């Protein structure tokens, strides 16, 4: 069989970036939650908040570590596998990433050490500041990388000189037409992902662990958050969809499974099997006119279909179509859970409802799956373009020998599969182990309250070596 280096490079990028996005999606939300708990603990003195922060900081640490090591790969993969792309867009995308490193990566890394290992080294307020800085760092990082990604979808503010992109207006490059929507949508998605990881774990702990107070607090907070965030996300997602309709109508057509050049009164398809060769759907089940109503606010509104562009400018419809449904399906499920939780809380039976808690505990990966599905809609939907309408993916891949890419791809698949198993194993282990008991926390507080002095004290006492 003839190996195709371009295809392998694309597979490798898709695989490595999919693996990477799992971890920041969790850490952005989790860092924010930990900062909130630590702040509440400082404010109220309620040790349950400290327990929550201390319990979640460990899963946070391993998740963050996975994000760091898988992220470094990406910063080099543009050049190794898409050298021509790097050459022609480097002047636009490179500076955005430089700003990401300058304003976010260093910040996160610099204060993470204090957040994780500095409990006995700095005072509680300073420690809280470090945690907040790490959380804010994750948001800033998302801002720059989303700006770069959005520019590839809705390029603006550039000029092309001798086939190379140059920047005319940085404002337009950064705040390109899809950027505000994509940024809000992704940041909310990350908050929701973190929220549901905590929600699911708390629900499990309420039934299976002895730390009921902490679990109750965790579940209660995250259910309130879910009640606010998930409907908000549905609204933002709708706005984002309208933005796609305006700037990337072909992607929208693939998401909705619309083939006809123009379709008035398009149905909202709940299920269908898109067929690229036959240019139509099989087994359609849909709600008449609803897609038109949602997207044009008119039941008979016209939508552009896939046939409006030549076949070689259409994405892989089935991937976009199904990923979109997975994402929306999970979103709807999350909204249902949030409202059911609110209803049970109103009835006063939230913490006793076994079926609800059990159902919640299965939702731990829901946010991650939705995030991945959403990114497949976005990225596969942009194909065959790498920079929408301007640069075709196939034209800018490095001219590498296929065997070499196959070799690295194999290495990544093996490494990441192994590490993902390891990650799940340790997450499970940490969650089963539970939080540090309150007595131990209050002992450690001695250290927290009197920074430098306490370090000297701690050295003298040499607390019994407690292994994990």
């Amino acid at each position, binding site marked *: 069989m003839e190996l195709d280096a371009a295809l392998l490079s694309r597979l490798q990028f898709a695989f490595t970036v999919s693996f990477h996005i799992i971890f920041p999606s969790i850490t952005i939300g989790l860092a924010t939650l930990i900062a909130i708990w630590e702040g509440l603990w400082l404010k109220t003195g309620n040790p349950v908040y400290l327990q929550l922060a201390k319990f979640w*900081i*460990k899963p946070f640490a*391993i998740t963050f*570590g996975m994000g760091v*090591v*898988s*992220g470094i790969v990406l*910063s*080099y993969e*543009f*050049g*190794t*596998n898409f*050298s021509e792309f*790097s*050459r*022609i867009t*480097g*002047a*636009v*995308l*490179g*500076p*955005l*990433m*430089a700003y*990401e*490193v*300058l304003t976010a*990566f*260093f*910040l996160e*890394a*610099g*204060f*993470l*050490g*204090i957040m994780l*290992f*500095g*409990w*006995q*080294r700095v005072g509680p307020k300073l420690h809280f500041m470090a945690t907040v800085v790490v959380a804010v760092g994750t948001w800033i990082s998302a801002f720059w990388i989303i700006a770069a990604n959005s520019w590839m979808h809705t390029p603006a503010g550039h000029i092309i000189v001798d086939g190379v992109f*140059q*920047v*005319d207006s940085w404002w337009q490059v950064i705040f390109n037409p899809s950027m505000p929507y994509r940024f809000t949508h992704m940041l909310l998605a990350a908050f929701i992902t973190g929220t549901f990881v905590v929600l699911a774990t708390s629900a499990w702990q309420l039934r299976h662990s002895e730390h009921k107070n902490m679990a109750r607090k965790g579940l209660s907070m995250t259910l309130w958050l879910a009640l606010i965030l998930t409907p908000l996300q549905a609204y933002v997602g709708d706005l984002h969809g309208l933005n796609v309709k305006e700037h990337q109508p072909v992607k929208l057509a693939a998401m909705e499974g619309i083939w006809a050049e123009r379709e008035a009164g398009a149905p909202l398809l709940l299920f269908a099997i898109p067929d690229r060769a036959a240019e139509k759907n099989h087994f359609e089940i849909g709600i008449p006119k609803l897609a038109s109503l949602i997207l044009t606010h008119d039941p008979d509104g016209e939508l552009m279909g896939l046939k409006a562009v030549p076949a070689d400018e259409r994405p892989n419809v089935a991937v976009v179509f199904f990923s979109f449904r997975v994402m929306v399906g999970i979103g709807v499920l999350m909204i249902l859970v949030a409202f059911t939780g609110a209803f049970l809380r109103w009835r006063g039976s939230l913490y006793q409802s076994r079926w609800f808690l059990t159902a919640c505990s299965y939702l731990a990966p829901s946010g991650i799956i939705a995030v991945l599905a959403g990114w497949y809609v976005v990225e596969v939907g942009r194909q065959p373009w790498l920079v929408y309408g301007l640069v075709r993916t196939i034209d800018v891949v*490095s*001219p*590498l*020998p296929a065997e070499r890419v196959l070799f*690295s791809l194999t*290495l*990544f698949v093996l*490494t990441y599969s192994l590490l993902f198993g*390891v990650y799940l194993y*340790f997450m499970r282990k940490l969650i089963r182990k539970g939080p540090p008991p309150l007595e131990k926390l209050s002992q450690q507080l001695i250290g927290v309250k009197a920074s430098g002095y306490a370090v000297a004290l701690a*050295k003298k006492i040499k*607390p019994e*070596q407690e292994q*994990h």
Partner: protein
Amino acid sequence: MELQMGLPLFYFLLLGFAILMYVLLDGFDLGIGILYPWFNTDAEHDHLMRSISHVWDGNETWLVFGGVILFGAFPLAYASIASLLYLPIMLMLIGLIFRGVAFEYRFKSHTSKVWWNRAFAIGSSLAAFCQGLMLGVLVQGVDADSVASSSLQWLTPFSLFTGLAVMAGYALLGCTYLTMKSRGDIQQKAARYGQRLLLFVMLAMLLVSLFTLYQQPEIRERWFGGAHSLILMLLPLMAILAARLLYRDLGRVQRQFAAEAHISIRHESRPFWLAASLFLLAFAGLVAGLFPYLLPHQISFYAAAAPDSSLSFMLPGILIFLPLILAYTLWGYHIFRGKVEDYEEGY
């Protein structure tokens, strides 16, 4: 015209600074990974890990910074060099992945601890070796017609040798870091290994210099014929002086311990700074030979430079944030100053 040449030069120097920071900072923590198999007990391994677990992430960020500066300021060079060095980069990344996750997982493991020890040692060594290999390619250069990504020119006896040399250099940095941050047996061991590694590193620097002078007439001309040759000659002289002092300091740490005398902090921390200056001098020598090329005789920094709109856009960010980064990084080291303690600290 002045300014137009000035900006690319600024970024060339900035790139050099980023690489130097990376080599010094991640150098000592990769070095500890390389030294890892020479320490035997669990307690020693715990200690080694503890000494760097709070800084490795920040240190590695300099590698990302170097990468994105190359990408943003010299897209042409980033594109060519990254695809030319495809395999060494990929292997380096895999090495960095394994040693990076080992920090978190090792402290939380029981039965799998031995595997995380291996992941840390082998990952660190692999990453350091690949970096040395790439350094070798940048020193020896590649044929003009083989910038095509399919060439295997990065694999030569010379680049294999520089791979080993960089491993030894990082291990030396690791030894001096441990001399500064540890006590007792670990410190003694580090000082002892440090002396041996220093001899090897000096020999390797000599061989690499001789090979480069022999292979590349332009560099020979620059070092011996040019107007700056007197100044350039200071570099090897200062390197020899630094090595001499370093060797003596490491010996003193060992003797004073044997005599149960009190070792002054100055003598414990000076080796690290001497080793760092040795790296600085070697790096200065490298840049003196390479200038103005990013890839010898093929891609100069001004030919690869991004348009002014990009270079000047990054400028305020660098001028504002880089000093801040240096300040809070320094503050972070200050907070964790002093010897590494062998009890569980932190989260």
